[in-house]
């Protein structure tokens, strides 16, 4: 997918779809969001040519900051080849004509749904998250007038009530995704539904992290090198998920794995959720214990494309 799609740029639309006024409005919102890390800034969200819940918030941010020299990568649950990722990538190819890539280190702009790439991001990259529900307190306090006050006055006891409930019912904190974080020792923020495995990557990340919620019309941000702490109790510290076996295809350890069902007899394997990371490792000669079977059932083609 590294081939450039110059031929299909659609001149009917403004560069990157949104009109320049809207982009400017969103960039102003972004500046404010970066100035107050973790604070949800309302913005005039536009109708996008896709349904809410498919990344309209992330797309609006990407459209506002993308430039002709950018290289865009889009991932959905870590993979470059899922429906959401493919359609958003094609959308930007069509309306902006920018280069796209699946390789994390070649991208200058990465739009993501529900994952942070395994590879450490750099200061020259921007990570844009798609956020379905920006308010971490909404399940406990449905009134927005009240949640805004809770943020304004740092009244965050309620967030721990949720964690208390987890421990009292299940013996441990069972929140495994969208695990609330405290940003810059001030605001409590939803990290979007990334697995809590990825939470530690947010802390002191060299790349700028931007979050867009289209339906709720909120934008928030974590500037580079910002403190991000996952909430916990003194006697029940925050922990990330651990996997017993390495990736079945590339043998990677210490990465987030997805379960893949292989047949209707219950055969399954765990593979890297980050498809680019997995492909790169296989290309470098790493092989997991199911690498040969996976090729034989067509799960991985000989070129390494899933």
């Amino acid at each position, binding site marked *: 997918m590294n081939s450039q799609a110059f031929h299909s740029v659609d001149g009917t639309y403004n560069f990157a779809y949104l009109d320049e006024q809207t982009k400017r409005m969103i960039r102003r919102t972004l500046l404010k969001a970066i100035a107050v890390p973790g604070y949800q800034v309302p913005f005039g969200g536009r109708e996008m040519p896709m349904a809410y819940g498919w990344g309209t918030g992330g797309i609006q941010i990407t459209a506002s900051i993308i430039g002709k020299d950018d290289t865009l990568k889009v991932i959905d649950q870590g993979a470059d080849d899922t429906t959401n990722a493919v359609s958003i990538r094609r959308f930007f190819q069509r309306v902006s004509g920018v280069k796209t890539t699946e390789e994390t280190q070649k991208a200058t702009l990465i739009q993501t749904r529900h994952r942070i790439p395994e590879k450490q991001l750099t200061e020259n990259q921007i990570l844009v998250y798609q956020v379905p529900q920006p308010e971490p307190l909404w399940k*406990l306090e449905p009134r927005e007038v009240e949640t805004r*006050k809770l943020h*304004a*006055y740092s*009244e965050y*006891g*309620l967030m*721990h*009530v949720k964690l*208390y*409930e987890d*421990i*009292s*019912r299940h013996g441990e904190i069972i929140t495994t995704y969208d695990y609330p974080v405290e940003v810059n020792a001030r605001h409590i923020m939803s990290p979007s539904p990334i697995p809590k495995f990825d939470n530690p990557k947010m802390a002191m990340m060299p790349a700028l992290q931007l979050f867009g919620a289209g339906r709720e019309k909120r934008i928030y941000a974590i500037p580079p090198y910002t403190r991000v702490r996952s909430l916990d*109790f*003194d*006697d*029940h510290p925050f922990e990330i998920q651990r996997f017993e076996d390495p990736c079945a295809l590339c043998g990677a350890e210490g990465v987030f794995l997805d379960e893949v069902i292989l047949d209707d007899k219950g055969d399954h394997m765990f593979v890297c959720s980050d498809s680019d990371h997995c492909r790169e490792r296989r290309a470098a000669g790493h092989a997991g214990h199911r690498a040969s079977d996976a090729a034989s059932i067509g799960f991985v083609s000989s070129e390494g494309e899933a």
Partner: protein
Amino acid sequence: MKALLEAESVGHSYPGGQLGCEDVSFRLYPGEVLGVVGESGSGKSTLLGCLSGMLEPSNGIVRFDVGGQGLRDVFSLSEPERRLLMRTDWGIVRQNPRDGLRMNVSAGGNVGERLMAVGARNYGNIRNEALDWLTRVEIPSSRVDDLPRTFSGGMQQRVQIARILVSKPRLIFMDEPTGGLDVSVQARLLDLLRGLVRDLGVAAVVVTHDLAVVRLLSDRLMVMRQGRVVETGLTDQVLDDPQHPYSQLLVSSVLQA
């Protein structure tokens, strides 16, 4: 002795000129229980709203001894200061437990919330404290993880009380604490409240239309009618020898079982 709460000519009119209450003045001292009685619409709940910081009075001043540093006008405090007061030094027991509890959070979580709100971050300690308070309000410890909606009305009311007392408030406001409970449950709740108020030395303002409740709980009584206080005095004195015609009517209207 220093007053804990002071109301000076407190009055409130709703938009449209509808009178809530008018010219109410009193002082409440630490450990004292003040009863406010009157018929429906007499302004009791409006007064309670003004006193408890939920409703800014249109006239008069409400002062509270914030942090033991002398009386301060409650409505001149900044909103975060007032909210801190409301979840630490104060407690409000609502008539309907649904208004005072989080119905989708376990009894233990409800009781622990105030501790977490002031920074408790040790699960074990929070849980022990919640268990301790639930036991003190006679909720079996086996129910600590159950949702309040699985509790009876009387139990819900007791969880609400535990949820407030856990932060060791100096003043609690009660709005018809026994409303909607049957008489035997009422009696046990009152007994419990009386014990707790006496043991902890917490001051209280109890608003009710039930004279039996104030007879049991309160030291002093205010009788309200049409937004004004018509009679005040020691509880037994007002109930046994009412002076104002309305108080006499109120006392004589109680059905004898």
